[in-house]
């Protein structure tokens, strides 16, 4: 087992008296692929909100990296700079800008305003962009406004932007939503490939998709972990069948 990258320790969060996350603990290694499943409202997206600094938990710790740095209290931009990238449930790309500009913006480079003001893409940057575009199947769309892309292409562009950030941890929320079966297959390949060199956490409802990821699965229910293990292991769990699969 590779070394630990992220340790979520006893976090809870309450929205207007409703406990969305309840004493959740969760670990992920530095080159690991993990699927998170669970019924609607289980707290999957909220979990990502907490790790990325969007939501502050009422209690608990999120420890990151070799130095076990606590991420709680850091802002979203700082956490992203630490190396955590996130894909949203609904694809969010900058629709008014070209595919290329979207990717350039995401490329791992200095994020400070002065540096960005004087920044010019190097040949290495442009090569990286065309490699990424090839990987996500958008080589011919680089100059198009991303708002003109199809839903599936936008999903891919967002995944491409994630990869461009070169994060150490990728949090991917429902990447396959709205994709055709072929597109799903391609998406699985990208994620499996990415997980060879970094940690990837995928939230997905589609069991076929999860099966193809062929990785450890964590089942969330009412804000805490219900079961964890291989897909066959968790799907055999009676509690999991009752709250999720059996519906």
């Amino acid at each position: 087992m590779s070394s630990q990258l992220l340790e979520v320790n006893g976090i809870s969060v309450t929205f207007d008296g409703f406990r969305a996350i309840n004493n959740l603990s969760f670990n992920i290694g530095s080159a690991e692929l993990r699927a998170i499943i669970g019924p609607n409202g289980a707290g999957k997206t909220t979990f990502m909100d907490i790790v990325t600094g969007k939501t502050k938990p009422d209690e608990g710790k999120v420890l990151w990296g070799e130095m076990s740095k606590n991420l709680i209290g850091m802002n979203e931009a700082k956490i992203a700079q630490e190396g955590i990238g996130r894909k949203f449930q609904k694809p969010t790309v900058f629709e008014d800008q070209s595919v290329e500009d979207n990717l350039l913006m995401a490329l791992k480079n200095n994020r400070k305003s002065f540096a960005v003001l004087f920044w010019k893409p190097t040949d290495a940057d442009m090569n990286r962009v065309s490699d990424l575009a090839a990987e996500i199947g958008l080589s011919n769309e680089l100059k198009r406004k991303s708002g003109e892309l199809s839903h599936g292409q936008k999903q891919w562009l967002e995944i491409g932007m994630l990869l461009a950030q070169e994060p150490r941890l990728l949090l991917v929320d429902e990447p396959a939503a709205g994709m055709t079966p072929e597109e799903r297959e391609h998406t699985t390949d990208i994620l499996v490939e990415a997980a060879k060199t970094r940690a990837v956490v995928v939230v997905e409802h589609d069991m076929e998709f999860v099966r193809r990821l062929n990785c450890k699965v964590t089942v969330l229910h009412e804000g805490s972990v219900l079961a964890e293990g291989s897909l066959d292991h968790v799907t055999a769990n009676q509690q999991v069948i009752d709250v999720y699969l059996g519906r």
Partner: protein
Amino acid sequence: MRNTFIGRNPSILIFLAVLAVFTIAITFMSEAFGAGVISTSFVKTLGKTLCLALVAVAMDLIWGYAGILSLGHFAFFGLGGYMIGMWLMYERTKEIVAGSMAGNPIPPTEQEIVDGIGTQIFGVVGSSEFPIIWMFADSLFLQLALVVLVPGLLALVFGWLAFRSRVTGVYLSILTQAMTLALSLYLFQNDSGLRGNNGLSGLQNLPGVTASQDFVSIWFFWASALALAVGYIFAAWIVSGKFGSVIRGIRDNEARVRFLGYSVEGYKLFLFTVTAMIAGIAGALYYPQAGIINPAEIAPIASIYLAVWVAIGGRGRLYGAVIGAVFVSLVSTFFTGGQAPDINLGFYTIQWVDWWTILLGLSFVFVTLFAPKGIGGLFDLIADRRHPDRHGADLGPDKGSLQEREATE
């Protein structure tokens, strides 16, 4: 390099060419250098219009590109005017005071001259003491520095407080209006140190210059054209690269920009401050041509007009802002200057001096509802510029910026 800056922005060359032709044409039609077909006062009007175009470019940067609807940029414009006005008024009064004392049997001391200037300038507000804020008024260099430093510092402090607390959308607009109102109310007071509601006057007279206003007006016209050209190129440079990508990203989805690792607050603060400085420079060129500045110039409504110009011209494109400012302010001069003939409807006479504001308000509503791209949008018809389907999402500060909303939905 992949593309040159100008290559990516051909509209810059067109803009500069139009501006150059306009400047030369006006010069040859002026009283000073040419045929004298246009009056000196009209040259001043045109020069002032160029300054308004410059502040509109600043407004477009902050609103059209970054989605921050600041309703306070005219305050920065006014502050720039006050800063240069202090030097102009001080030096001019000094000339007059020194001149009148020169005939005295005993030559006046330095202190007597300064006291004389103080009495001249502050007599109207019942004082003769120089307030501390006038300490640099005798130095052109320092007052010129203050033209950018004072608006810049105010913007920096205000922006730091507002953006750090993540105030966005309508709330931010209201805050900027509050700032503007507070500033103008403060300046209205006699003990503000800037002559209360009298403001600063006689600014059209350049100290040490004996040339007539025919010439001075053309000099300022040239300076305004140059400032607009430089400001335009600077703004185009800012928005053309990755910085431009980031600020447009902030306009469209600031949460997403944060998750990419960009400090949204830092970018907003930078842009807010830089545009305030540009506004200050524009104001410093405007008020010597107007001849007078008083706190009414900084009234909240002025900043709202600025937003209206940019909206009518077409936000999110720099030439749109220029067109909006030039078009609306010139038409406004025409209507409010009494040149427009009244329309007699028999039962009622439409007097444009009163009805112009209503017409302007209606055009604003019309543009917002039916032509969100403004006058500048007409160029798309020519250039056939393609736009993405934004799926009904509007340009900048959208409803989402009113609340901390999850970027996922």
